[in-house]
């Protein structure tokens, strides 16, 4: 056990830090959902790519730096520390890209990977369906293979970043006769194809982070199938494996949230033992999350099977984050319901709060997480 950086890691850390210090824009961008915001984010992404920071975890041959998970985490720690802009093409760089690198063919890689790095193509994910929520394998979107084409009909839901997406990596059912987990195919769908429609989902917190996708007789070339027809479940599982090293939800990120909440604690409550105990608990939980994650990244970095904790991160952070935000709302008192930020708030906490509540549902509901832990970690029987 050694938490110091290796000389190579130190060099890498210094390189990032210096570059970010020199390059991170001083003004904050408009949201990428606006035209100007999108343009500025893309410009920033291209600058990152120019410095070969766009996807440090990708192999060098594809434009990355071949960084192991620990070094990738060092990159994101610096990135957050520098308060750099939110990433624009997360699902491409974190999920679609690594899946292509692992299971795509040479043509597919050369076709899609470069435009991911430059953000010429933005990607979104088409896994969830209204009737297949927790039961991912129960999805119904049809893909009829005939000749060189897959004809796609159906509906996807809960896709994020889909409003300005160019490509969708999706799971479709190509063999309706096969058992649930079989007969699925992993498909890259051009979002601009005829028959693709995107409808933003208005959320209860007055925002719209997600959208529905509708497919009506969308023709997708068979060349866009990754990993073979009817082999989609295996490919999708490989994709989801990359989620755990996606580096979005880091301890530093949650400390930032906690810091925002602490700024809202009124002077009069700062000596309140109950308030202090709660804050201590949050601090402890974030640090636990730091080391849960670091254990996993360390194992992955030396090519070992990660321990049981690797199945637990999502459950831990999602419930912890909601507790922190719920506490923040308590601190705001009656002002907690205001849609506009009150003095001291960076953004309206109540909106983050509800989004956080949604995180107990998305990316495998916390009930599914507990099933997985009890079955895969503890070896209890499946079902129920």
């Amino acid at each position, binding site marked *: 056990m050694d938490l110091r950086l290796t000389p190579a890691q130190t060099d890498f850390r210094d390189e990032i830090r210096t570059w970010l210090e020199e390059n991170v824009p001083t003004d904050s961008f408009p949201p990428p959902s606006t035209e100007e915001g999108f343009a500025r984010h893309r410009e920033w992404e291209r600058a990152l790519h120019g410095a070969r920071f766009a996807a440090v975890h990708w192999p060098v041959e594809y434009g990355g730096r071949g960084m192991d998970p620990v070094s990738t985490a060092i990159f994101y720690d610096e990135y957050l520390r520098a308060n750099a802009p939110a990433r624009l093409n997360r699902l491409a760089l974190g999920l679609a890209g690594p899946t292509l690198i692992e299971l795509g063919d040479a043509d597919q890689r050369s076709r899609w990977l470069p435009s991911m790095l430059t953000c010429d193509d933005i990607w979104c994910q088409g896994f*969830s369906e*209204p009737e*297949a*929520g*927790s*039961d991912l394998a*129960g999805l119904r979107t049809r893909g009829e293979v005939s000749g060189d084409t897959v004809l796609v009909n159906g509906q996807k*839901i*809960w896709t994020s970043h889909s409003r300005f997406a160019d490509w969708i990596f999706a799971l479709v059912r190509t063999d309706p006769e096969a058992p649930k987990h079989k007969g699925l195919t992993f498909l890259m769908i051009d979002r601009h194809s005829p028959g693709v429609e995107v409808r933003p*989902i*208005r*959320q*209860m*917190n*007055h925002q719209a982070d997600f959208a529905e996708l509708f497919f009506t007789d969308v023709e997708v070339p068979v060349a866009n199938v990754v990993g073979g027809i009817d082999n989609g479940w295996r490919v999708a599982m490989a994709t989801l494996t990359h989620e755990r090293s996606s580096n979005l939800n880091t301890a530093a990120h949650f400390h930032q949230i906690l810091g925002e909440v602490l700024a809202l604690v009124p002077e009069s409550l700062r000596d309140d033992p*109950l308030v202090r105990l709660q804050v201590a608990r949050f601090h402890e939980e974030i640090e636990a999350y730091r080391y849960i994650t670091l254990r996993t990244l360390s194992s992955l970095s030396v090519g070992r099977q990660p321990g049981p904790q690797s199945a637990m991160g999502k459950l831990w952070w999602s419930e912890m984050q909601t507790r922190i935000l719920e506490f923040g*709302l*308590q601190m705001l*008192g*009656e*002002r*907690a*319901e*205001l*849609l*506009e930020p009150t003095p001291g708030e960076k953004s309206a906490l*109540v*909106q983050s709060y*509800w989004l956080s*509540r*949604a995180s*107990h*549902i*998305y990316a495998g*509901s*916390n*009930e599914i997480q*507990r099933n997985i832990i009890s079955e895969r970690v503890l070896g209890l029987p499946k079902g*129920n």
Partner: protein
Amino acid sequence: MHFDLDDLQYEFRDAVRKVLTAELSPADLRAIWEQGHDYSSTVWPHLVSLGLPGLLVPAAHGGGDGAPVDLVLLLEECGSACLPEPIVETALIAPLVLSRAGTDQHRAEWLPRLAAGEAIVATCLGEDRLVPDGARADAVLVRQGDELHWVPRSQVHATPVQGIDPSRRLAECAFDLGPDTLLATGPEAVRVAQDAGAFGTAALLVGLAQRLTGTTRDYLLERRQFGRVIGSFQALKHRLADVAVQTEAARSLVWYASYALSESTPDATRAVHMAKAAANEAAFAANYAALQLHGGIGFTWEHDLHFWLQRGKALERSFGSTTQHRAALADEVLAEVWR
């Protein structure tokens, strides 16, 4: 000794439920949410015709001459229906406070209007000047230190602001307070108002928690995953069972608080502390279970669930948090134990 509401009270409850079901469907609620500050009530006249808003006004002023115990089931219904009106303020706090404080002139001017359902009242009893229905109310009951003021609309300066629950119609308010608005001085009158507010809100929360439980139960019986209704999954069943238990516990305390306030028992304030703390906890648990068990659909604007979720969180914070009520309860209880 009998701890239950009586047949007349249950019949009144049924009548209110019928009106609210007919006049305040989820579609109606949705329309109200979309209208926000521009909404003018269509359900109110129906409640007035049942005599709900004036139920606690003394008969001498044309009211129903009732007590909080007569109101408790009706407030549960209002909570269950997510009623977008300041019912606790208007039908409970205002008549109680006016009956016990203020001048004959206050009473003569306002109690008949309350009895007739012609006045809407808002309250501002905390430190904050953010008032639900503040721009809409005919009068605002304002606490200023130890003073209680009755401020008619003409002396209220209200700026509507957007809240996450638009049907609460929040407004930032300033008040022209003076000798003409002073209703009472001293902690006793303030306590009457606060106790009434906390009790009434607790009753709303019990109804709201029960509604969330029922809605979620229905969804669990309808939604299928993994080839079966998800209501057959034990973890979900147990979670909702725990909510039901907390709700019934809170209801029991709320009912007792209604009795204690009606009889002005010496432990009435304590009873209110317990009722609001327990109702907060039940609503909290119901809120978390309801959204979680609905899954993604419950997070959409398009689905109705969020009316109750948003309203519930707002009411949990109104008229005292769990911590505030428990701290106050501890002060009362422990003063007798540890001297």
